[in-house]
């Protein structure tokens, strides 16, 4: 089973998984609008149809979906990036557990409120003023105000929000094009390179982006890929001009 060929039929997108990834990484598709859970469901459905557990596919899928989710989270909460990136894995796990606990509490609080509201359906009270009479039904008086408060309100509105360090994000999140350039440059110098050694030292997410760049090159017919065994190193080889020409001839025939 080839994960990147997984056919998706989402509200925001219809087509194979790798096209979705490419569009997202090129900023041509708003990730915030993609329902990642639907992608997971589609994958699980496919797995079930095949009737056997494909560990390779699951592993690849997990890496890609984790990367997607992280990208989406960053898009939804850009300011979080700064706080969370400072955390050690241990602290991040604690933060995650704390947030999950908060959410679970609020789910329960919401259930409590719903039950309470249902129990209050027999309580009627007046919304709004009493039937009007009497001198007291005038609009309330407003105490004198300083006009300086008006200017102060606008000055507060003019305060620039602190700018988010986008450089930081760009560093951790190179666009797929950056890896495309890097791999192409590398391939101009060398005919073949080892994917693992090229991504060594990168974060998992960066490695995932690099992986997408590699798939992109393969799709464009610029490279061929070989892997001796699962989890073995992936060898990236420049497609020979002859090979591409032959392919072209074969296709047009």
């Amino acid at each position, binding site marked *: 089973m080839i994960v990147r060929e997984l056919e998706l039929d989402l509200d925001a997108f219809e087509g194979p998984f790798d096209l979705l990834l490419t569009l997202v990484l090129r900023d041509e598709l708003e990730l915030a609008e993609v329902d990642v859970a639907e992608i997971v469901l589609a994958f699980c459905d496919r797995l079930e149809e095949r009737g056997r557990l494909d560990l390779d596919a699951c592993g690849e899928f997990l890496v890609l979906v984790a990367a997607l989710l992280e990208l989406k989270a960053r898009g939804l909460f850009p300011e979080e990036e700064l706080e969370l990136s400072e955390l050690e894995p241990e602290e991040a796990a604690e933060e995650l557990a704390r947030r999950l606990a908060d959410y679970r509490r609020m789910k329960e609080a919401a259930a409590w409120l719903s039950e309470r509201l249902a129990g209050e359906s027999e309580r*009627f009270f*007046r919304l709004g003023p009493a039937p009007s009479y009497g001198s*007291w039904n005038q*609009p*309330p008086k*407003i105490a004198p105000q300083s006009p300086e408060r008006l200017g102060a309100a606008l000055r507060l*509105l*003019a305060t620039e*929000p602190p700018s988010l360090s986008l450089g930081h994000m760009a560093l951790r999140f190179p666009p797929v094009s950056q890896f495309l350039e890097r791999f192409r440059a590398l391939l101009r110098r060398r005919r073949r390179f080892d994917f693992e050694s090229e991504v060594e030292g990168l974060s998992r997410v960066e490695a995932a982006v690099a992986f997408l760049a590699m798939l992109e090159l393969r799709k464009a017919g610029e490279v061929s890929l070989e892997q001796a065994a699962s989890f073995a190193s992936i060898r990236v080889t420049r497609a020979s001009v002859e090979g591409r020409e032959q392919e072209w001839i074969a296709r047009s025939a």
Partner: protein
Amino acid sequence: MDRPLRLISANPVDRVARVVEGLLVVASQPLSVEDLAVAANDDPERIETALRLLGERYGEGRSGIVLEQVAGGWAFRASREAAEACARLFERPVERGLSAAAMETLAIVAYFGPCTRPDVARIRGVAADSVVAGLVERGLIAEAGRDAEAAGAIRYRTTPLFERVFGLESLAALPRLDDLGGEPDEIRARLEAVAEKRPA
């Protein structure tokens, strides 16, 4: 016996009277005998009997709540004995009444008005409907025609009451905003740009 046996409370008019009390204490407007009869699912004669009963209970000198027949029906009001206290309750000047949201909206209408609710929302970065409605109700801003361009949205301007509350002879007396730079239009464009950068 032909008639089915029914359990009837000692005085069912008491029950109707309690339902009418409940309806009147929730109503924002006088309720007619028909309104009351439809709501209570009872006949108008019994409603009238109940109202007579309530009239005796809720009369001047007997209760702080007075049942009164006015144009359009029946309503509760405060007794004359409580009038002075009611006047004190409603005449407290409400300084706390001008929230930060109200102040921002007033400032926008005063400096850049007349402007529409979408204009205000664009600068504040949040929907302005309830704030604008509150300021209209309190007489600090008022409608000033429709904006021909913005799909006929209603435009608002500040009122003479606004000028009195802020001690201004006219809008020309508003404090200058030189530190924000330039003409009102420039300041406005700058505020809109900042609003876009603010987190939602």
